[in-house]
């Protein structure tokens, strides 16, 4: 079981890094690239005997308490089940 947590700035928060990268894209000649927002990506793996329910709780806690600053950021979780 693996979770991927994607952290992004809230839409209302200015992203100076994203803006700067977008300008660089323009300079490269990629004029169709109008907006870039920078974020973070975390792969989280669990001990084998972790139940899916408990895993979900852990990831919520991790995302809320550590990986994001709720003043400026939000997150979404993508689950990957090992076959």
């Amino acid at each position: 079981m693996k979770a991927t947590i994607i952290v992004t700035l809230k839409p209302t928060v200015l992203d100076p890094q994203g803006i700067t990268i977008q300008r660089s894209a323009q300079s490269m000649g990629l004029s169709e690239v109008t907006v870039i927002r920078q974020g973070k990506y975390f792969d989280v793996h669990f001990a084998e005997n972790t139940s899916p329910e408990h895993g979900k709780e852990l990831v919520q806690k991790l995302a809320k308490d550590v990986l994001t600053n709720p003043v400026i950021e939000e997150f979404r979780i993508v689950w990957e089940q090992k076959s």
Partner: protein
Amino acid sequence: MKFGVVIFPGSNCDHDCYYSIQSVTGQPVEFIWHQETSVKGFDAVVLPGGFSYGDYLRTGALAKFSPVMKAVKSFAEKGGLVIGICNGFQILAEAGMLPGALMRNSNMKYICKFLKLRTATTDTPFTNRLTADQILNVPIGHGEGNYFADEDTLKQLEDNHQIVFRYLENPNGSLHDIAGIVNAKRNVLGMMPHPDRSSDPLLGSTDGRLIFESMVNALAGANRCE
């Protein structure tokens, strides 16, 4: 009265704070390693500047999990004086001891220079030696000092006079030109500019002294009341 300067892995203004506070106030100062679980015996706690935990994840984000922070938090809840300078401010914001967040500067630059601050309130234990609107010459050195908070929080800060210092010329995009704020109880101050780097004439300004002197003043007053 005893000052404690916390050292996190990656702090680098700990000795500046130690030296400035000791030489300005003549009071005893001790370092507090971040693994400590108590700040007993200290009258004021300083979270110094630097790059705690390498600024990994977000500035100040991982320092809030250092064992000492639990003690600093309960110290502040009991009314103890806490000042966070630069990275210390970032840590206080991440720890939820001050509202808002410090984001990347809006102009792509790490800025290290002297600039002017306007004193927005003298009604704090950190500014009681200052006069209203007094201009201070204090340096900044940061890449992430761009203060952000939502509208409601900003209104609250304005209404309660929690904004302590404002930049005369905003260097980093901070909302409302905020350079430093206190909590609602007014015993926790976070500021991006460095009073520790402006307390010795050799460094070009001694305006930062007034902040440390105010703390001593406040503590002396508090002791008298007891």
